[in-house]
């Protein structure tokens, strides 16, 4: 799997999905091209999916928000007969490396979270209209929708057959959403997750696996009726005009470095690290929502978010040996804050809201990136407001203290803004500041009176906003030693340690998915009972069952 996976796509390139826009309702049709797999060696039968299918879905969800704010209800459905979606393609999973499986699951999880949150964040409600079998990852797609309708034709069912069939877990949120979101009682969930064929008809409603079963002959009609009802109940403004998400500007250098218009990814392969440098805005913030709308995809904070998002995804999937990501910024913090303030002041304008919500997702994507993350707060940098969040997302941060010899850039500062107190919550619903201070909101609140004040290194260190403030004498050596040490540790231990320390305090469904469920799934993905030559996942399709080592670990 050496080819570069590209996360950029657009409707003209979709092979697996189509969207029919019908005013306030969009019909999202999954019709996977069997021959359109991202890699060789498997066919995407029965609407099964691989990463390529999910990249399209993620693109659709993103465009639904930015390009089609007029849409209030999205109906996810199948374009195939008798099957809604059979889930992740098993042969693809069987043939994929462990790292690819993990990255695949992470991305699909993020995509599920994104459309699940679309109702709350953007007023776009997703309905799953299930006809035919809806199994495994297929049901997980439906579970992430806000409402599930199932036809009552006495054969369509919802199922999580992973355990009995493949000896793995329904790892794309399945186990967690069944209990935490759908409120299926845990013993019934135990039954449900052990039965290959799943549950159909009224029992699916009784067990809360779906919201509604509908007579088959009235299914299409009832689904559209329900969609109209939800659209009518929606409090989302009517008739918003979207913007076009034009292609991002991006080029790859021979050594793998990537240049975007506002983001540079420099690669030092020997050292096992990538340095991501984000440029601050040069132009002033738009002075009105009309001006923001006119800028569209070129609006600074949207453009930089899209580029940073793509860079993170690219590094995750395509540059797996770069274990350390270094975040830098360069630019005018005041200008950056003005751009952010414009959005915060106009958060009731749909596009401003969407850009802020997108930043929430991009920052979460950084939280969830299993690399060692470090931020360097150098002179001339702009870690202010939204960019300051990066400091509290990463594992450590180093800040330049006082003037450096021969460096005439403005002194390094960190500036808090209103947004640091809740605009970009992490997966467990705490602000990064609260998370940083032992999940103690009151502790974070103490920093409120420092909002807007450019804090130099000494203050920033004292307030706990950075890890170390280093002067000209120590900077180079300390940073070098840290990076070299970090690069020498076991990547597995790093991933485990970082994932544990990054999240402090309470759990939410989201963190249970990324923490508990994913960790167990990734453990199972390493175990011979699933992936060994005689494991169930490897043997799937051969007719032979997994040969299990029955020892409980």
């Amino acid at each position, binding site marked *: 799997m050496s080819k570069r996976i590209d996360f950029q796509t657009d409707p003209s390139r979709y092979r697996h999905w189509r969207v029919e826009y019908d005013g306030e309702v969009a019909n999202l049709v999954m019709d996977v091209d069997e021959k359109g797999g991202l890699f060789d060696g498997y066919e995407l039968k029965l609407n099964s999916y691989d990463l390529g299918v999910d990249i399209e879905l993620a693109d659709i969800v993103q465009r639904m928000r930015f390009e089609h704010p007029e849409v209030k209800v999205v109906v996810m459905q199948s374009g195939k007969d008798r099957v809604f979606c059979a889930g992740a393609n098993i042969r693809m999973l069987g043939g994929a490396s462990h790292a690819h499986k993990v990255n695949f699951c992470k991305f699909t999880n993020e995509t599920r979270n994104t459309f699940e949150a679309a109702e709350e964040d953007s007023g776009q409600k997703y309905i799953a209209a299930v006809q035919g079998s809806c199994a495994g990852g297929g049901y997980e797609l439906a579970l992430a929708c806000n409402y599930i309708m199932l036809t*009552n*034709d*006495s*054969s369509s069912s919802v199922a999580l057959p992973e355990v*009995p069939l493949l000896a793995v877990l329904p790892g794309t949120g399945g186990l967690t959403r069944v209990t935490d979101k759908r409120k299926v009682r845990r013993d019934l969930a135990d039954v449900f997750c052990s*039965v*290959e*064929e799943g549950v159909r008809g009224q029992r699916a409603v009784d067990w809360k696996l779906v919201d509604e079963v509908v*007579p*088959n*002959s009235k299914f299409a009609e009832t689904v559209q009726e329900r969609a109209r009802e939800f659209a009518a109940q929606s409090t989302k403004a009517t008739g918003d005009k979207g913007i076009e998400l034009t292609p991002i500007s991006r080029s790859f250098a021979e050594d793998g470095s990537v240049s975007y218009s506002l983001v540079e990814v420099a690669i030092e392969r020997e050292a096992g690290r990538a340095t991501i440098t984000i440029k601050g805005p040069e132009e002033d913030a738009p002075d009105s929502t009309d001006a923001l709308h006119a800028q569209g995809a070129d609006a600074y904070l949207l453009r930089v978010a899209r580029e940073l998002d793509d860079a993170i995804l690219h590094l995750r999937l395509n540059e797996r040996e770069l274990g350390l990501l270094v975040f830098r910024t360069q630019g005018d913090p005041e200008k950056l804050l003005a751009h952010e303030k414009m959005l915060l002041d106009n958060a009731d304008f749909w596009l401003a809201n969407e850009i802020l919500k997108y930043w929430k997702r991009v920052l979460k994507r950084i939280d969830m990136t299993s690399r060692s993350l470090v931020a360097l707060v150098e002179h001339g940098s702009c870690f202010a407001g939204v960019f300051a969040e990066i400091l509290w997302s990463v594992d450590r941060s180093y800040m330049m203290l006082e003037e450096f010899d021969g460096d005439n850039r403005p002194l390094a500062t960190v500036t808090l803004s209103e947004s640091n107190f809740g605009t970009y919550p992490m997966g467990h619903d705490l602000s990064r500041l609260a998370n940083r201070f032992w999940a103690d909101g009151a502790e974070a609140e103490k920093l409120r009176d420092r909002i807007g004040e450019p804090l130099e290194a000494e203050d920033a260190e004292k307030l706990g906003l950075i890890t170390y403030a280093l002067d000209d004498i120590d900077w180079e050596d300390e940073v070098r030693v840290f990076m070299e040490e970090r690069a020498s540790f076991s990547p597995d231990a790093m991933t485990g340690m970082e994932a544990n320390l990054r999240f402090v305090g309470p759990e939410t469904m989201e963190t249970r998915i990324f923490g508990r469920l994913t960790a167990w799934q990734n453990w199972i993905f390493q175990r011979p009972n699933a992936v060994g030559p005689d494991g169930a996942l490897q043997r*799937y*399709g*051969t*007719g*032979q*069952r997994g040969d299990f080592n029955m020892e409980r670990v």
Partner: protein
Amino acid sequence: MLDLINVSYDTQIPNNVGLSQDKKVLKALEKWHPGYINWWNDLIPQNFQESLVYLRTAVSVDPKGWAKFDYVKMPEYRWGVLLAPQVEGRTIPCGEHYGEPAWQEVPGEYRNMLKRLIVIQGDTEPASVEQQRMLALTAPSLYDMRNLFQVNVEEGRHLWAMVYLLHKYFGRDGREEADDLLRRSSGSEEAPRMLGAFNEETPDWLSFFMFTYFTDRDGKMQLESLAQSGFDPLSRTCRFMLTEEAHHMFVGETGVGRTIERTCQVMKENGIDDPYDTAKIRDLGVIDLPLIQKKLNLHYTLSLDLFGQEVSTNAANAFNAGIKGRYMEARIKDDHQLKADTYTVWDFEDGKAVQKEVPALTAINMRLRDDYTKDAAGGVKRWNKIIEKFGIDFEMALPHESFNRKIGVFADRHFNPEGQMVTGAEYDKGLPEWLPTNADGDFIASLMKPCYEAGQYAGWIAPPKVGIDNKPGDFEYVKLHMA
């Protein structure tokens, strides 16, 4: 002491499984029974329900003399639960449990797989009755009508057989599945039958004969492989069902044969030698041989689709689990586990159909389909003998397996009946020569006039050589109830 050969009539449900001593299952079946009777009563037009039909009813599972013939009203037919006798010391004939004693109870690990197989098999049984429900209105003779009803009541009994297994071995899930077998209905928009081919109407008698010859033969092959099941009750059930299924294939083969015979006879009588002189032949009220070939093409290829994908995980799982074997498993000389064997299947490479070797375990469907094709070829040969006897230059043939397929590697590609890949335009051009057109259907429909006189036959079909139960030619197989 239970008598497991002769059928016990001491409960409402005839059986040889000791139902009267198995109160739990008896109760479940008795609860299911009214729904079944309602289904039957709503299905078959009323005047036929009241008619006396000369039917055979199973009275024993002894291969010699297992049935007796008598007049009966269909709703009063004694549908029962009949299993072939238990074979002492039977072992699991295939898969990873090969050689272990056959299961008398459902093995927990395979419960769902078994249940699914039984439900799919069970779903086809009532489906065909539903597909054929209107045919009696256009029966070409009382003899044929009787055969239709015999097939229908036996398909009904096969449903019973599957429902018994569901009730007896699958607890509450099984009872719910049994109820759903009556809830689904062929061609229904609300709850269609599980397999596509069983949702198409059987519009005329030639279709019925083709269906019983080709599609029931798929059923036979499925039953043959389930008869090899390591789950003994399923095996015994299917073995007895096969006894009945043979008659259905007989109805199909002789039905098509008699249609061919009549066409040849009328051609000869009218001095027509050219089988393609179809306008003239049709004017004489018989079905031209090229059209019969087209019907054959259609039904054979639809039936091939019922075998599923050439390479199938489900089939492999079922074989390896020992719950579904191959055709004549016991006679195959290999390890019965297919650990290292391969089998040849079709696949596509660079746009060309190629044959390649795959692990035999994954090609169980393909193998069964190949066995099916061999089995189906026999009747075609005998039909050709009839044509030959009349000295007409025409030969029926099974089309290539790539033609007109909706499932498997050939699906959605264009092949002619000889198996050559053709362009879309060539395909469209050839289609009226290869598959029945609407006009062909209309023509056949125009011949479908009832002939209810004892010993009389519609003009498009020859009388049978021998009567059922050796009855004479003018025997009144159905005493029609004329309301």
